[in-house]
């Protein structure tokens, strides 16, 4: 009944242009669209501004590979695997600019963009210095009804949103298994100009019709949908598979050293020609089966 939005990873990644503001789904170690992230590194995209609530390893890889020069959002952390060292070095060296936002500020900025509003207000951040650092986008305004001032958070329209989910049909209608619904999927695709979705599998619409309440994104907002099994690896995709502890630890170790970082990126990001080659590089079926059992989570 609708247009066919299926695309290859390369085609999807070509929707991202140098300098774009890219809203990236991720929650520390969860559900990042890693296959697209790797493709952006391979295609040597430059000067991206990454928007994230809590971004983890994808931001560290993109920092290491020189893909991004701005982070707009809440935090960058791999939780129990620690801070993102390459991102941190980039910021401390002045190569990556941070526009830090509280959670309600980021949600409000993206929410305003989705609804074509100039801003949405929050009472968060009052008293903090976060407001002072971002006068272009955060402004204390009077309550027209006589109460205390509140913070107007200016609409933030990303050029592209990139998200990962469990399944979609060809039209790009996206379903999520019952799991955490982080704000990313709830708002990024609605705020952005273009939308890339990777999914574990593309299925016939008839399968979606069996559980219409699990569809979280209508196809008409989606520009490209790409089938990538284990597309969130090494982040998790509950309930299908857990985050890859070994690969996270290997990255943390490599990230301490410039040469080791490059070798890691070559081996796991630049050299694998496709998703199958990548999965072989990270341990193949044995690793994937262990992740499906959530053995290290």
């Amino acid at each position, binding site marked *: 009944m609708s247009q066919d939005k299926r695309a290859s990873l390369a085609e999807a990644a070509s929707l991202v242009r140098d300098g774009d503001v890219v809203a990236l789904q991720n*929650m*520390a*170690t*969860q559900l990042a669209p890693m296959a697209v992230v790797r493709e952006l590194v391979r295609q040597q995209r430059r000067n991206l501004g990454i928007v994230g*609530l*809590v971004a983890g390893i994808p931001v560290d890889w993109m920092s290491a590979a020189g893909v991004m020069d701005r982070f707009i*959002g*809440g*935090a*960058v*952390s791999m*939780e*129990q695997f620690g*801070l993102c060292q390459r*991102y*941190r070095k980039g*910021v*401390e060296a*002045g190569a990556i*600019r*941070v526009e*830090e*936002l*509280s*959670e*309600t*500020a980021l*949600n409000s900025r993206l*929410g305003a963009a989705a609804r074509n509003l100039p801003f949405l207000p*929050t*009472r*968060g*951040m*009052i*008293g*903090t*210095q*976060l407001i002072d*650092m971002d006068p272009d986008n955060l402004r204390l305004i009077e309550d027209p009804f006589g109460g*205390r001032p509140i913070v107007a958070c200016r609409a933030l329209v990303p050029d592209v949103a990139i998200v990962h989910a469990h399944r979609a049909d060809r039209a790009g209608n996206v379903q999520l298994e*019952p*799991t*955490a*619904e*982080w*704000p990313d999927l*709830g*708002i990024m695709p609605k705020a952005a100009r273009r939308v890339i979705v990777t999914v574990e599998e593309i299925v016939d619409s008839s399968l979606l019709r069996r559980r219409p309440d699990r569809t979280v994104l209508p196809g008409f907002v989606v520009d490209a949908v790409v089938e990538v099994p284990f597309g969130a690896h090494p982040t*998790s995709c*509950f*309930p299908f598979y*857990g*985050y890859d*502890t070994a690969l996270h630890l290997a990255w943390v170790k490599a990230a301490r050293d410039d040469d080791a970082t490059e070798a890691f990126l070559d081996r796991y990001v630049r050299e694998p020609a496709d998703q199958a080659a990548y999965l072989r590089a990270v341990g193949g079926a044995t690793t994937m089966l262990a992740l499906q059992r*959530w053995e*290290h*989570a």
Partner: protein
Amino acid sequence: MSAPTTSTPASAPAAADAGRPAEDWTVDELMITRLAACFVDGDQACNGMASFIPVSAFMLARLTHAPELVWLASAVGLDPRPERVPASTLEAPLWRDSVMYMEQFGDFWNYALNGRWLQKFCVGAAQLDRFGNANNSFIGTDYHAPKVRLPGTVGMGDMGSIGKLLYYWNPNHNPRSLVEKVDFVSCAGYLGGGTEREDLGLVGGPQLVVTDLCVMDFEPVTKHLRLQSVHPGVTVEQVQAATGFELVLPEGEVPVTAAPTAEQVRLIREVIDPDGMRKRELGKR
């Protein structure tokens, strides 16, 4: 996979003398029992990432004095029954067997911002100052050229301003984490102290700081951090030496923090956190 859950008989105090002080508690266990005491039946608790000590505290409270503590694990899973504390406090194993998955963009903040619900938050911070302001943004003097870039504040940047009661935990009490003035206020405490917070119309605010050395509250008028109790075996001098500003002392003798009971220690070690995830946060002093 048939682990004890919060409602099984195995979780109930087992022995008549379970209330006696433990003989071999460790400081992580003491921090957990002290934090647990802040949460009572009817509270709604909620944890963020890398929060092994608060999560253990919620689980302990539910197993002991607050069986009707509502817990929204990772701000996602309502009243979960995790098998034990997992390796991440932000991943699905924590919200196992929940009664609800709360959507984050639209819904979680309806409750968090409302003011009536989710009143108490446990907060960890890289820097905390004498007036309870916290910093998770950067160390240094220049936002755009920091000495150290910290992870960022996310929800903390909101929680300090929207009327929540904040409970800080700090497993590594030292002069770099407890400072005279934070390099950057990314979570609003009592700002410059006194009525400054109140004057801005902010309600709630920091209540308590539980570290690996002591417990601190806030002097009601100046809003200056005040020693409430030192942990068994720790001296006031040790606390002062580990603190980057002059502590306010309570009137009279400084009390000693109550040690965990034998039963609390048993629950933490055998039921709640047999893998010792809580210890990950310590020892970085």
